[in-house]
């Protein structure tokens, strides 16, 4: 359950923090939450990845839906991607990787005995 809780905490806190801080604040959030939750490194990575990906996915889907894919379609073209779905996927992937790595680092840095 700690895994699910981590995901939700990361997603929730990041969505709040990112409104006030630059985009890389998602890494700090994933790091701190992961540090506090003390999980195995692999699990931590996944939680970090999914937490940020979940938040970004929800945000992007909402924005993109109310925009009728106007922007995502054009930007997919800019980045030579086949369709707007791919552009959304790339967005999520970038956020997820940063979240995952930050969480992974935190889990490793935390004293191993406590796991």
């Amino acid at each position, binding site marked *: 359950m700690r895994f699910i809780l981590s995901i939700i905490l990361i997603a929730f806190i990041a969505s709040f923090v990112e409104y006030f801080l630059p985009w890389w604040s998602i890494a700090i959030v994933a790091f701190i939450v992961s540090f506090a939750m003390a999980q195995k490194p692999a699990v931590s990575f996944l939680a970090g990845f999914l937490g940020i990906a979940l938040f970004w996915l929800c945000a992007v889907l909402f924005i993109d839906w109310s925009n009728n894919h106007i922007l995502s379609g054009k930007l997919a073209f800019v980045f030579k991607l086949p369709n707007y779905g791919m552009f959304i996927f790339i967005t999520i992937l970038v*956020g997820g990787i940063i979240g995952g790595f930050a969480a992974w680092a935190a889990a490793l840095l935390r004293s191993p005995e406590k796991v």
Partner: protein
Amino acid sequence: MRRIYGVVILIVTICLIYVLDTKIGDIPALGRFLDPVNGCWASAETVNRDFTAEIRFPELKTDASVWFDERIVPHVRAENDHDLFYIEGYLHAFFRLWQMDMETRAAAGRVSEIIGNKTLNYDRGQRRKGMVYGAENSLKAIENDPRTKMMMDAYTEGINHYINSLKYRDYPLEYKLMGFAPEKWTNLKASLLLKYMADDLTGYTEDIPLTYLRDVLPKEQFLLLFPEKITGSSTVIPAGTLFDSATLAIPKVPEGAIFPKFEANDKKISKNYLPVFPEKQDGIGSNNWALGAAKTQNGAAILCNDPHLMLNLPSLWFEIQLQTPDRNVYGASLPGAPGVIIGFNDSISWGLTNNYRDVKDFYSIKQVETDKNKYLFAGKQVPYEKRIEKIGLKGMPDFLDTVNYTIHGPVMYDDHFTAPGNYNKPLAMCWMAHNATNELLAVYLLNKAKNYSEYVDAILNFQCPAQNMVYADRLGNVAIWGQGQFVNKWKEQGKYIMNGADSTTLWKELIPMRENPHVLNPERGFVSSANQCVTDSTYPYWYNGYFIELRAWRINALLNRDKKFTIDDMFKLQNDTHSLLAESTIGIFTNVIEHLKIKLTSEEENYLKLLKDWDKELGAESKAASIYQIWWYHFYNDKWNTTLKRVPENLFPLPERTMQLLVNEYYTNDMEKETLETIKHIDDNVILKSFKETIDSIKILEKTIGIQWYMVKNTTVKHLSRLDAFSYQHLKIGGWSNTVNAAKGDHGPSWRMVVEMGKDINAYGVYPGGQSGNPGSKYYDDFLQYWVEGKYYKLQFLPNNKEQNNNSFKSCWTLHP
């Protein structure tokens, strides 16, 4: 051990963040860019966005309102001029900030600051032609007049209020893509934008190639191919209009060496003599006309205008209505400058086409051999005034360019920056756009002019770029002025490069602007212009220019008909794709091929048949139009490449002149087809050769994109960043530069407007773009399809009231001080 892994992963994470926060080549900082909260996604505008807001502007004097109609055209109501222009500035920035930034950077030669080395030569050219110098001069004139100073200051305040309110999240998308940030707006930027337009419209010059041609061609042939005024011009001011006699004495052509001769060693290219000149931008033209009350079915004057400019997204134009208790004006504004440039108010309407009289001349400068800092003028050694231009280069140290200013103007070309054709001696440029002129005052007054005399008082302040300004009012009057500031020149002054060491070549007196060619309510009942020659030879002052005639012939032929016109007729005329060029030449082409009795393949015969059955309309789907235009293109280039082998490329006689020569050659009795001579002509071979080339081109096209005219010509509306993703290609629209609907490759009708000035004002308009500059908005390109199809929006011209029926608007801003 595990901790060490942890540190490693932490470092990797930080590196990843660093990389994703850095712009690499053309790829933006991906992390920052993709961030759904602050990045590109913030530009994804909700399709049913409600713009309604209550905004506090401490700089406002009183409350004000902005109503947005369903096309989000803002209708601004303010209680005084200051507040009005403040809000206009805010609105322009709100919808078009990045575009305003880019255009003023382009004007000022500051593109390399954000692009880098690639654009250095462009920036140098801008600096050396004195763009900033001219803008600074004009700004002084603007700020010297209390009315335009107030207008400009308020406008700038409004823009800066918007810029100051922005966080990274709110930046227009293009800033995030290109990796730079908005900077503070200044009055100078608006002045630069006006000079940008002046450069676009009067920057073209044939002085350098004409100088070559004069020296290479026999005089008779030169005059035949490049007449100063083409025969049969259907002039802007109708022939027969009486001009007041000149109040200035017409200067005599001075004696002595007023024109330098080009010598072989002036050009480094004597062996391979094919210098490349900038192609004549004959897409920059425009149409306007106004029908007096007697020429229309409703008995009300109708005014029409479609300026042909660069087709870009965001569009050059932004529709707006501006109201205070003493002005109520609607029309197309230029984001980056206050007021309405083309439009109408509750009394009058006006429109612009480029006037094309030459106001830019070149002088050959004699350097003092022993002193690089001096030049010879009137027998004396005169020191240059030096202006150091600092050009910022992204990621590199600044580039410093010293520009020498002479009595004539800046030395644009010298051995550091060579002229087209590799002419490497110093050439100074004397240009009306360098002068301290205040066009904004014209705009300020024009926007609230109530009648013809107030109109004239307003436009007399409009000096450069000279425009054919058409007028119509609610009393049924129509008028046109070839308005601008011109110099009282001696014959051929400035037509060729002049000797800059001789004081007799200087620009001297200015022609009083009331003596500019104009006509009010001419007998024929209408006025019109389409960049043709301004007057017949009875106009007392001498001038030359870059006049083109084909559209004017067509427009005047149609308007001269004995008919009372309707608004629908005007729509049709603005979208007319009938080619006079084709009508006059296609018969010659096809007849020559038949008379030569060469063997044709069945394919070739089919193409010929298509042309014979053709209605001479350059319609979007027409195949014959493509065949004809390609044929004309090959014929024109083959003919002049053979005849003018040794002269600079791209200064060929005009298409209409070529057409006249061809018609004179083949028809004994002007244009009547029955008398087409069947004897051999010198152009027979050119016609045959170009026919074969055409067939080859057509075959290739058939295999690729097909030969429908719109596919072949490819009318494109390009985003200013040149990104294809934000641009539209192969728009299904007919026409070309030789038709009224001059939709060329990247130029075309940039704002079509039709206004009936009756008891009610009925106005229609459309431009290829949309009100929003944001590619993520549905208002970015929503007018485009309408424009392509030749449709119009009815413009909502609100009565001059503090209150409006809010139900008929999409949203509303309530503004408080």
